């Protein structure tokens, strides 16, 4: 077990054989005793001995208590000290080993008493205060690790070994924080850990020491250091207009976030006294004098100031430019807004965030002198006031800490080290100064008459400025204007968002301040809402320069700020709401321009929807992205996320248009209390899933052999549904049924013939979407029985693909109301027509009846295809029927149900739902026929000749309404159970759009939504009715299949009849 150790092979006899034994330790002790002076010759030996001591001690800790006794008895730690204090050659080499031994010792020791013994004499503290050669990175590493290891051992018992109440000695802490600014990041992290571990210990006298003797110097230095870091960050932002040093900037931002999180972690420990000092320093040494100060208008450069003064002299006016203030460091307003956002996103300590929010919302230039005293006084009883000002502390931390150990009255720190540059002029004159400087700026290069004019106006302008009680809030609001781009606006939005979502700021207070304080005639809250609507309106314009993320936050904030206080209506005026809706309509118009029959549009559309669904707005994550600090750019070459930059090229413009529309649509629905019912385009619920058992009686099945890439062969039957390609295997139990083994969307199918084999097709089913370049869902060779079947399959796949796409494109067309694809004028009418909606309706309640049936007439034109059978499930099927059946059965069921329902509808009890059902029916049949039809229809309506009479009140027998699509479909498929129901259940989907579009468009949007919900309700009823009617017949099978079987039976029954009609 014990290998021979060559480095011990030398002249030292008497070495015990057992490496891990008390004897060996005794032997090592003798070596230490003999080699008290480190020299070239014995260095290796000492290092090796120290290493062995560590090993034996750990072994002893776990096995033999005598080992530790011996170690303590001989006071071996003092030898350690003695060795490290020697300056002789190569001491860092020995020191590294020494520190490592100590680390091993303290890290691996398990026995509590052993630990106490080790700490009991003051050697450990002496080792800590020893000035090692910290320029050696290994010494530094082991040393800081040593402190960290010890800090992890801190608790209310062990604290007394480290902190000496009588001498005010706490080297573990004071030595550690001296490295708070060490260039090596790992060292800084360790320092933060140590300090947090120290604060965590609940020992009042220790905490008092920390507060009285070290807090002010440590925090003032920390804050100054953070401030300097920020100036560096600001320089980086200013000089990096072209996104060149992105890496550097993102590191600076990440580093700053580290600082903020560290401060937040301290504040979260909730040590009252400490937090008071830290809050004071942060506010008055950094946030107010640097961040808030940077929100004031930038003064002219010194040269210009001089010119101004001269000019003022010419004009006989006193311009009192505060040169001192001009030299105060400041950052750009971009950076200031960003940093303030970060504070509110990260820190939640109430006194701090409340005071800072107060300054922003209520403060004027006086804060540069007085700080946020008013607020802080309410939180802290005996404040040690720190005078605002951003500047370097008088003493470096090291100096300050050195004096601490001497006899320095600690409380004087707070006051004594305020060297910060303070604003000396009273607030009012400062404001005047700013105003006049601005005015003077304009005075350059103008004629004398104009000067005179300006002189007059500047007088009044000055008055205006005097009225400005909230210059910072005004700056924030002003930043929301994005006439040129949204560079500032995004950051301003982040700040408002962060403030309104901060846990430390009481929501009511925030609301109150905003709604009470006024600028001119309306409150700030109104001003914010107007600004938000302004951004939203602009974003819906075709070539706007507003990024998606800006739109998203603006919309989110709009929802937040109009949140109903109790259960009342949203706090938004009709005018404002109209603005929102017209923005939505505008965005729809923009989107229409991109609507193309090109394949990519559909993919983009679905892709964007998924993206939007996936990505929840997270402003905190957004603010970790340093790129928002740089001017907005369009090029993806910067690697900036799509939503955080402007679109580049036509495809991205289309994507943007789609996304803006989605966002606006979603928000409008929130305002209307509606639920999305038309998106996503694919109704997942009605899709066939793998392993579903399907009734394939009378379906077209094409037998084939699927040869995968790895040459594995499977015998399958190819079924082509309206949306899906399905590969089935015969069901073992039920004749004519099959189990789906593979499903893919027809829209993503790619078919290629084989040059050499006419019975063979190469079929690829992609995963869909444009941005994800993943492997296809299926890529295989399909072998058919003969040439004819192969051709048939190819034709149907190709047709199926284009039809599936057409269908979805039609859905989109309806969603965005493409003229020509549908009855566009309806919407013109809808926009002005209010729809009856029970109690809350406002007049013209009967008029809805006027235009609604027209839909029906549209469908009733002979030959026009209409969806009928599954009408009643239209609005609900996704949600209602999802639970228990997702396959075939649904369609059959709905087909069956609608038939059952038809007598009902004419009975008048469900009149409204009946209307709606019919409304829902302008159906698919894509082609010139339908569009011409719709145009025809539209004419009378646009001319206002709407009439109830034009539409038959009673539905015609449903069986007469044969959707063209279905017709074809069933001809292709030969009548079978699914062929009828399934396309119908999808093809009707787009038409539901009408319902919602109307409601969104109408002037008073709340009402239609009620109609919509009424409709939904009645549909719900009908569905549940239908369900109740359904008897569950088969009991021997699982209920799932059972119902299917039942429905299948009924469905096929109905379809057979249908089939008969069709063939007539």
């Amino acid at each position, binding site marked *: *077990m014990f*290998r021979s*150790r*060559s*480095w011990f092979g030398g002249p030292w006899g008497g070495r015990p054989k057992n*490496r*891990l034994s008390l004897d060996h330790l005794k032997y090592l002790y003798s070596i230490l005793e003999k080699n008290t002076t480190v020299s070239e010759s014995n260095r*290796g030996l000492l*290092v*090796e001995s120290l*290493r062995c001591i*560590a*090993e034996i001690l*750990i*072994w002893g800790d*776990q096995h033999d208590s005598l080992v530790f006794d011996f170690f303590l008895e001989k006071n071996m730690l003092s030898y350690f000290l003695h060795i490290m204090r020697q300056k002789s050659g*190569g001491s*860092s*080499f020995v020191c*590294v*080993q020494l520190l*490592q031994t100590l*680390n*091993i010792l303290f*890290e*691996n020791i398990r026995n509590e008493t052993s630990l106490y013994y080790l700490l009991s004499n003051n050697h450990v503290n002496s080792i800590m205060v020893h000035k090692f050669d910290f320029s*050696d*990175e*290994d010494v530094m*590493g*082991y040393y800081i*690790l040593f402190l*960290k*290891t010890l800090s*992890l051992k801190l608790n209310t018992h062990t604290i007394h070994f480290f902190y000496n109440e009588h001498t005010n000695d706490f080297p573990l802490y004071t030595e550690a924080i001296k490295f708070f600014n060490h260039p090596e*990041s*790992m060292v800084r*992290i360790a320092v*933060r*850990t140590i300090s*947090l571990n120290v604060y965590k210990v609940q020992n009042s006298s220790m905490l008092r020491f920390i507060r009285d003797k070290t807090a002010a110097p440590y925090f003032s230095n920390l804050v100054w250091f953070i401030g300097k870091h920020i100036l560096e960050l600001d320089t980086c932002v200013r000089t990096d207009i072209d996104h060149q040093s992105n*890496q*550097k900037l993102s*590191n600076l931002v*990440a*580093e700053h*976030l*580290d600082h903020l*999180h*560290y401060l*937040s*972690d301290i504040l979260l420990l909730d040590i009252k006294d400490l937090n008071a000092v830290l809050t004071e320093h942060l506010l008055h040494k950094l946030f107010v004098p640097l961040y808030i100060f940077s929100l004031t208008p930038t003064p002219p450069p010194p040269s210009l100031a001089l010119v101004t003064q001269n000019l003022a002299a010419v004009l006989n006016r006193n311009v009192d430019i505060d040169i001192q203030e001009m030299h105060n460091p400041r950052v750009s307003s971009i950076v200031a807004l960003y940093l303030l956002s970060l504070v509110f996103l990260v820190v939640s300590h109430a006194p701090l965030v409340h005071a800072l929010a107060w300054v922003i919302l209520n403060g004027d230039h006086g804060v540069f002198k007085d700080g946020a005293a008013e607020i802080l006084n309410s939180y802290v009883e005996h404040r040690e006031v720190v005078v605002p000002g951003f500047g370097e502390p008088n003493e470096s931390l090291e100096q300050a800490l050195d004096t601490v150990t001497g006899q320095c009255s600690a409380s004087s720190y707070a006051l004594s080290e305020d060297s910060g540059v303070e604003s000396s002029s009273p607030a009012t004159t400062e404001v005047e100064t700013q105003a006049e400087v601005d005015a003077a700026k304009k005075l350059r290069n103008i004629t004398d008459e104009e000067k005179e004019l300006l002189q007059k106006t500047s007088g009044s302008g000055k008055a205006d400025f005097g009225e400005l009680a909230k210059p910072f809030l005004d700056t924030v609001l002003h930043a929301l204007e994005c006439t040129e781009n949204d560079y500032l606006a995004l950051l301003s939005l982040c700040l408002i968002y962060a403030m309104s979502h901060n846990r430390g700021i009481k929501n009511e207070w925030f609301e109150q301040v905003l709604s009470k304080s006024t600028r001119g005639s309306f409150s700030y809250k109104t001003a914010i809402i107007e600004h938000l609507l302004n951004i939203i309106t602009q974003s819906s314009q075709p070539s706007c320069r507003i990024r998606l993320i800006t739109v998203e936050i603006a919309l989110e904030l709009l929802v937040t700020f109009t949140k109903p206080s109790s259960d009342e209506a949203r706090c938004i005026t009709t005018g404002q709401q109209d603005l929102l809706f017209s923005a939505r309509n505008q965005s729809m118009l923009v989107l229409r321009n991109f609507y193309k029959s090109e394949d990519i549009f559909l993919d983009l559309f679905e892709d964007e929807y998924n993206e939007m669904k996936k990505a929840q707005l997270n402003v905190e994550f957004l603010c970790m992205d340093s790129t928002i600090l740089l001017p907005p750019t369009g090029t993806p070459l910067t690697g900036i996320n799509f939503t955080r930059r402007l679109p580049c090229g036509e495809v991205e413009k289309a994507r943007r248009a789609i996304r803006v529309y989605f966002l606006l649509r979603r928000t409008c629905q929130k305002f209307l209390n509606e639920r999305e019912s038309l998106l996503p385009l694919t109704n997942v619920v009605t899709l066939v899933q793998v392993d579903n058992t399907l009734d394939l009686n009378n379906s077209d099945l094409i037998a084939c052999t699927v040869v995968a890439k790895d040459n594995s062969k499977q015998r399958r039957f190819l079924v082509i549904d309206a949306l899906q390609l399905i590969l089935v295997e015969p069901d073992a139990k039920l004749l004519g049924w099959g189990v789906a083994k593979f499903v893919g969307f027809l829209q993503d199918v790619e078919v290629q013939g084989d040059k050499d084999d006419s019975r063979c097709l190469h079929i690829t089913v992609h995963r869909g979407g444009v941005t994800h370049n993943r492997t296809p869902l299926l890529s295989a060779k399909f072998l058919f029985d003969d040439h004819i079947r192969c051709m048939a399959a190819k034709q149907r796949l190709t047709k199926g693909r284009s039809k599936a796409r057409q269908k979805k494109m039609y859905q989109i067309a309806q969603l965005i109301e493409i003229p020509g694809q549908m009855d566009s004028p309806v919407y013109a009418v809808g926009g002005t027509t209010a729809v009856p909606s029970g109690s809350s309706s406002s007049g013209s309640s009967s008029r809805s009846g006027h235009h609604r049936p027209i839909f029906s007439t549209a469908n009733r034109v002979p030959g026009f295809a209409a969806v009928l059978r599954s009408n009643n499930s239209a609005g609900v099927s996704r949600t209602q029927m999802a639970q228990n059946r997702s396959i075939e059965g649904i369609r059959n069921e709905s087909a069956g149900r609608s038939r059952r329902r038809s007598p009902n509808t004419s009975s008048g009890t469900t009149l409204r739902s009946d209307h709606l059902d019919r409304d829902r029916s302008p159906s698919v049949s894509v082609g010139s026929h339908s569009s011409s039809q719709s145009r025809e229809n539209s004419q009378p309506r646009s001319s206002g000749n709407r009439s109830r009479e034009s539409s038959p009140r009673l539905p015609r027998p449903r069986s007469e309404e044969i959707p063209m699509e279905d017709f074809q479909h069933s001809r292709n498929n030969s009548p079978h159970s699914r062929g009828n129901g399934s396309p119908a259940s999808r093809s009707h989907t787009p038409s539901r759009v009408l319902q919602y579009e109307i409601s969104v468009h109408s002037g008073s949007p709340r009402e239609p939504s009620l109609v919509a919900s009424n409709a939904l309700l009645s549909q719900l009823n009908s569905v549940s009715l239908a369900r109740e009617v359904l008897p569950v017949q088969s009991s021997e099978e699982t209920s799932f299949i059972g119902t299917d079987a039942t429905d299948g039976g009924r469905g096929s029954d109905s379809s057979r009849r249908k089939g008969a009609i069709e063939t007539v």
Partner: protein
Amino acid sequence: MSYAYLFKYIIIGDTGVGKSCLLLQFTDKRFQPVHDLTIGVEFGARMITIDGKQIKLQIWDTAGQEAFRSITRSYYRGAAGALLVYDITRRETFNHLTTWLEDARQHSNSNMVIMLIGNKSDLDSRREVKKEEGEAFAREHGLVFMETSARTAANVEEAFINTAKEIYEKIQEGVFDINNEANGIKIGQQHSPTNPSLPGSGGAAGAANSGCC
């Protein structure tokens, strides 16, 4: 003392998976763990040679720093390599890998090389996580995988050195911005005064001096 590059590593994983033992085994081969004596340390450095270049590996174990958010978020950044360690005899340490990886990916720079390590491969009789599972996890998440034993030193060298090789390759490819120290890579002062007889790090000395293996 002189090196061409310094790579900073961090070691992450649940407590008790043997992170600090791995580290000590690598930096200080002189500590040969004996029967039930486990010794670890949370910092270490060692010189290795890749492609004829002296490279110093500086390894920081981050144990005990998980309590504070500010600490966790900062230590991932600033490392060029990470060893993600689990214990093959404890299933739960394997199950927690996803969380560790998420954390690492969220906070680290995107180029950080992560190596997955199944430690304690010497305890095959008590194995709870199959080697194939580790391999599958690594494949799925694009990591390099290796089973090691801090006790027998099996694969320990390879784990650290292979990671270094990958970082080195990335430098050659120009993926890593080596002028940015925040990436965990430092360029050595090639002409700094050196004392070949006295390598500054205990680890390096250990490697040179060790005659134990």
